[in-house]
């Protein structure tokens, strides 16, 4: 028997049997949330890729055989996360089928979200016995600002997909409670286990199931206990791969900041976090207080009357939010996507209860709901606009660079006029690799126009030093494009002419060893730079700018090969302008290496220094007959 037909049979429904919203055709109750979803987020259907999307899109090019595929699907990546369905398979599958056409990705997000809205409506119907409450819960949830990121950005699909598994599993738990059928119980298990491939938050499902059965279906409580075992195992495995960062955005902080973080999320769940500070005025604050009071008082009153459903809804919010609460330095609105489901059901249930009270109560809840929806939808649309426009700007940039490479395949591309948004949503993630373009740089001075996020990355890694761009201009190795509102505009001639008359030929203090534009700084001993390798033989030299102030260090880094990793560290002897630096042992066991030397003060102020490198051991990597020393990617004095 379908549990939608069991409304009068379930305890909650029987409690609210006398409270009914005006009746609408049943189909409308299902359709309204979906229509609102498309009305509010329609721009999300046409957003392009941005930011982390490019890391996932680049995965496809790394797959050459079954082993690569398994690695791409299941190897820990990005803070050690393993999300094979919502990130790896999602991007690999759609990119294989549709290339860089973003629309199919977006349609998949929307369809999953439609399934989520239908599940929320169905679950709320089952919990409250009211189709209208189901419709309201889905509408409250879909309007919440926390969904904007998930609806606009393909990399946040994990929130939507994990929502589907959580809601699906919970829906089958409710069916199991009603029917007692083993098939429903196992469907719950299946969806719950699949959810681990979607998002780590899935570990909280057993707590949700336990909380529900404890409060509302106690005789089934024991059946939820086995669900905890997969969560414990997953948590152990996840912690093993992800490790625990001691510092940085993803460090966990179990300290006095937890209540403050919780309050921030609570506020964002009720009123948008998007309004700029000037607009975030008394109205929003009053609404925040009013909604908080209404919901909390409702929970208390219902609990005192022995109705535990509101308490369960509140518990949903806290339980699903709990994994991200210790991320004190990474409070993100989209972390609220799944916790707010609990608040949406709570609000819908509160409306349903108020509907059976006096007119004053009805007016109060309608006013509160309308205020919430108007505020949320307003900022949903503003922020969707922002995400959408930013993605299209990234698209114009990426496809413009691809076009530039088509026309000038032997030249490096230099971009002028790049904004903060374009840099952090596009260039920083090296989207051009999707088109086989590696040599894309920013003009000197670009770093002054781009907001710094040192914890995320260094802008200067992308900026060409003045001396290098001057040399490249003289040798006709670059094309320069200015980022315009509609397309990239080639300004090579004028930029080069200006560069030659204004830039000084200073040697750079940072040398990208893989760039063809810095080849003139390397001595003739070096092997030619390749896409991800610049090998020296036993000894080699390069020129670069000297230290600007006392105490500066020479940092050098590169990649180690599998053959080197198995051997003892290599001894590296370095001298700078003939001054011998202490010998260093280079540990090549990891995929990359970095060594650094304190530079003598006598070198300070020299416009250029000659760096001589010598290793004590070389190797050959058959069939390559070259004698290989170390593979460098950068040199920097700072």
């Amino acid at each position, binding site marked *: 028997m379908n549990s939608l037909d069991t409304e009068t049979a379930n305890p909650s429904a029987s409690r609210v049997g006398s409270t009914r919203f005006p009746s609408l055709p049943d189909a409308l109750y299902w359709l309204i949330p979906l229509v609102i979803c498309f009305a509010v987020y329609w721009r999300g259907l046409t957003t392009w890729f941005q930011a982390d999307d490019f890391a996932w899109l680049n995965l496809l090019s790394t797959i050459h055989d079954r082993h690569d595929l398994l690695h791409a699907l299941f190897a820990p990546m990005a803070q050690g996360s393993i999300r094979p369905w919502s990130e790896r398979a999602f991007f690999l599958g759609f990119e294989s*089928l*549709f*290339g*860089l*056409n973003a*629309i*199919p990705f977006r349609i998949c997000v929307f369809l999953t979200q439609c399934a989520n809205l239908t599940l929320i409506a169905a679950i709320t119907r089952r919990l409250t016995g009211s189709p209208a409450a189901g419709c309201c819960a889905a509408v409250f949830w879909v309007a919440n600002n926390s969904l904007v990121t998930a609806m606009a950005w393909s990399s946040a699909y994990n929130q939507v997909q994990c929502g589907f598994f959580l809601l699906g599993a919970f829906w089958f738990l409710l069916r199991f409670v009603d029917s007692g059928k083993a098939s429903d119980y196992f469907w719950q298990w299946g969806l719950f286990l699949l959810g681990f491939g979607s998002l780590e938050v899935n570990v909280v499902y057993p707590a949700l199931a336990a909380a529900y059965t404890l409060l509302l279906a106690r005789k089934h409580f024991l059946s939820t206990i086995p669900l905890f075992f997969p969560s414990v195992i997953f948590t152990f495995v996840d912690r093993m791969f992800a490790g625990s960062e001691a510092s940085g955005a993803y460090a966990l902080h179990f300290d006095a900041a937890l209540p403050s973080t919780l309050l921030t999320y609570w506020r964002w769940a009720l009123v948008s976090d998007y309004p700029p500070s000037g607009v975030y005025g008394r109205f929003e604050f009053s609404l925040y207080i009013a909604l908080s009071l209404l919901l909390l008082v409702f929970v208390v009153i219902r609990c005192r009357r022995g109705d535990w459903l509101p308490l369960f809804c509140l518990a949903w919010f806290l339980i699903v939010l709990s994994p991200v609460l210790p991320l004190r330095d990474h409070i993100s609105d989209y972390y609220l996507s799944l916790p707010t489901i609990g608040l949406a059901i709570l609000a819908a249930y509160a409306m349903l209860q108020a509907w059976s009270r006096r007119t004053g109560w009805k007016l109060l809840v309608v006013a509160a709901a309308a205020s919430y929806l108007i505020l949320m939808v307003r900022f949903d649309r503003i922020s969707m606009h922002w995400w959408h426009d930013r993605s299209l700007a990234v698209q*114009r940039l990426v*496809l*413009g660079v*691809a*076009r*530039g490479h*088509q*026309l000038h395949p*032997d030249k490096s591309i230099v971009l002028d006029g790049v904004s903060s948004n374009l840099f952090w949503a596009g260039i920083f993630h090296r989207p051009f690799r999707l088109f086989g373009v590696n040599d894309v740089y920013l003009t000197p001075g670009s770093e002054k126009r781009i907001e710094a996020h040192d914890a995320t990355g260094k802008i200067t890694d992308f900026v060409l030093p003045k001396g290098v761009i001057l040399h490249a*201009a*003289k*040798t*006709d*190795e670059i094309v320069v*494009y200015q980022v*315009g509102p509609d*397309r*990239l*505009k*080639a*300004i*090579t*001639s004028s930029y*080069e*002419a200006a*560069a*030659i*008359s204004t830039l000084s030929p200073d040697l750079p203090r940072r040398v990208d060893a893989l760039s063809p534009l810095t080849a003139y700084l390397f001595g003739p001993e070096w092997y030619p730079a390749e896409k991800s390798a610049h090998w020296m033989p036993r000894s080699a030299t390069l020129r670069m700018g000297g230290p600007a102030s006392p105490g500066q260090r020479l940092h050098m880094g590169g990649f180690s090969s599998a053959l080197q990793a198995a051997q003892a560290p290599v001894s590296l002897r370095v001298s700078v302008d003939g001054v011998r630096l202490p010998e260093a042992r280079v540990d090549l066991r990891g995929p990359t290496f970095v060594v650094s030397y304190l530079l003598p003060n006598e070198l300070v102020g020299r416009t250029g220094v000659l760096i001589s490198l010598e290793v004590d051991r070389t190797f050959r990597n058959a069939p390559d007959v070259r004698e290989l020393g170390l593979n460098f990617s950068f040199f920097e004095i700072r």
Partner: protein
Amino acid sequence: MAIELARRRFLLSALAVPIVSCRNTHQDLSAFTEEEPAHLLSAVQVGDPHSAPQLLSGWHRIEADAWRWTARKFSVALRPPPGSPMLGAVLQFRFTLPEIVIRLLASVTLSASLPNLQLLSKTYDHIGDALYAASIAPGVLVGDSVRVDFLLDKAILPSQADGRELGVIAHSVSLETK
């Protein structure tokens, strides 16, 4: 059975059509950049087919996707690089002297000239890669293009085995601002 097969084919087609039509494998990207008016290059890889318009005379076909034999006389059009009218430039010609040239000719002397300016001559008598470099004073390079004429004092004459006059194996010619 036939109806079932036809139905399966229809369903497969219904799935395949949107997938194929959504793939943007050959997207026209021309609208995404606004290019400068076409101009000559300052550096020419003679093995690049796109360089052909600048190789004016005395160049044989591309071989091994990388190089061309020259004749005894050969010419190229180059764009004076930015700043070169004011700062002067260096003409660089990279080539290879194969064993057969040295065996038959012992040595070759290469000279180059610009309109109204004779550049230095240099003699080569070793097998292998070689570089001809000549300095051009400020004020010589003007306009959007300059013709550079190269001349070898001797070359391998056409034979029954190869009907071409063969000078050296050329890789690149460039003008670089000093």
